[in-house]
């Protein structure tokens, strides 16, 4: 059964000095699913994301992406293997247009070409089809020539997801894509994430339980740097440990 997972992490440990943020987390992510990671603040969700995507290197443990060990590779090396991420705090290029933001993101999988200091910057032309299809998916087509700082918060959050999509990854890590969003924007984002499942694998950190329970195939519940429970939304909802630990009313809706 190891062959059907796109990403397998085994016993991932991350220590910051004496503080152990992750103490032996194992997780298996199946292709073309939405796999959510939930847990209270400080459970180690974002640290797990950082180690899986290479933003920080794990202290020990193994991370296998499509059969290849990547635990010691940096984040920019892992991007070349089909991995991309978004950030919890929007991280765009505020002074560049939406088009150029995405062009930079698409160029990231061929970084060698971006070292060409003698070729004219092709501000249009090369990645146009890709950029247009992403903007269409995110309903941002009208904003293509605005700078990213001119977008509303909800639009910026969507572009944040678009930046990860532009690398055309096979597995995408979304760190709280709805943070700070209004109610209408949240529904739009939920539909976008659900739509991604057709083409790629989504790993999601999300605090909005409505979204998590509705669209996830698998949920991993974390607590104090370890995996507490893993299963389908139904299993997680019904699990006594999860209720007892902290979620309780949030998951069951108070019933």
């Amino acid at each position, binding site marked *: 059964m190891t062959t059907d997972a796109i990403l397998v992490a085994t016993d991932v440990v991350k220590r910051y000095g004496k503080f152990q943020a992750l103490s032996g987390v194992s997780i298996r992510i199946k292709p073309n699913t939405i796999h959510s990671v939930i847990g209270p603040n400080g459970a180690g969700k974002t640290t797990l994301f950082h180690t899986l*995507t290479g933003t920080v290197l794990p202290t020990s443990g193994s991370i296998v992406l499509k059969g290849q060990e990547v635990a010691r590779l940096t984040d920019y090396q892992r991007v070349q293997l089909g991995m991309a991420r978004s950030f919890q705090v929007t991280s765009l290029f505020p002074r560049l247009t939406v088009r150029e933001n995405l062009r930079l993101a698409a160029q990231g999988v061929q970084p060698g*070409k*971006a070292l060409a*200091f003698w070729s*004219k910057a092709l501000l249009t032309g090369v990645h146009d089809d890709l950029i247009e299809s992403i903007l269409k998916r995110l309903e941002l087509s009208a904003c293509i020539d605005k700078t990213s700082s001119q977008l509303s918060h909800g639009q910026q959050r969507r572009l944040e997801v678009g930046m990860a999509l532009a690398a055309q990854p096979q597995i995408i890590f979304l760190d709280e894509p709805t943070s700070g969003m209004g109610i209408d924007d949240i529904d739009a984002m939920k539909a976008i994430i659900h739509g991604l499942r057709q083409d790629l694998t989504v790993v999601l950190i999300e605090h909005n339980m409505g979204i998590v329970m509705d669209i996830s195939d698998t949920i991993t519940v974390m607590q104090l740097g370890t995996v507490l429970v893993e299963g389908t939304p139904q299993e997680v909802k019904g699990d006594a440990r999860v209720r007892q630990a902290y979620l309780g009313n949030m998951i069951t809706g108070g019933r």
Partner: protein
Amino acid sequence: MTALLCKHKDLLLAVLAVLILPWMLKSGSLASEVLIFALAALGCNLLLGYAGLLSFGQGIFFGVGSYALGILLTRTGMPMPAVLLTAVVAGAVVAGMVGWLAIRQKGIYFVMLTLALTQMFYFIAYSTPEWTGGDNGLLDIPTLPLTVFGHTLLPNKTAWDYYVFVAILFLLVFWALQRVVDSIFGRTLLAIRDNPARCTALGYDIVQFKLLAFMVSGAVTALAGALYAMMTGIAPLTSINYHMSEVILLITVLGGTGNLVASVLGAAFYVIVSDWLSYMWPRWLLVFGFLLMAVSLYLQGGLWGACKLLFARLRPTAAAAQRGEEHP
């Protein structure tokens, strides 16, 4: 036609500067000095304005260019263009080594590393007098004419002859650097300056990009150093000391970062005003201390930023139209 003019307006401004200088200044050496320091500032601007790297190591590259040219012209019979080219390559190689070390750290530690390396190169030059002339500097460097297959293209005999030679090289480098900052590489550098974390997450190895920027910067700065040594006939120890780094940074910041014309403006201002002040008052550097404070406090766009503000006051509509196509 107008579109073409707009597209190359920065290059046109550089040409304009080259044409105005002889008309403004009586001394050809002073005019050449303006362009030479403009070259050095262009190299610094690429790092500071585009890659966001505050390097105190520019004096190293200037000095390496000076010494490389001095040593080759006094000891070998290499043709002058080949000597200049070697100096440029030496600058790029040394900048590659300095960058390779310094880029590993960010922020204040990066600055400290460039500062430490500047001191190190100064003492290397000081303690190898058989090569560099040590305290006295490398003397009797000839100013050679530019000849191709026995034909003298540029005699480089008088100060104004030499100005023509420097001006041609300056315009070539300006055009090339303008092309570099407008390239995919240049745009990626800007992105790295503004958001390095995102760039890494997108797949860019930002060390590679900063290193390439360093090498281009080192090459241009070494050319400035080489031209300066050939003009003055001497490669003194002051061309590689900490103060040289300081002067290059001062010119770059005074002019304004993120636009190449700004560096030319900064160099013209610094060289001409310091020449004028040094006649009147031996403590003239103090004035630049105050100017740097004024720019840091009130005018972070530098002199170029001030010109743009003035332009916007005078012609609000034209300035608004211009804003759209400006570099972010």
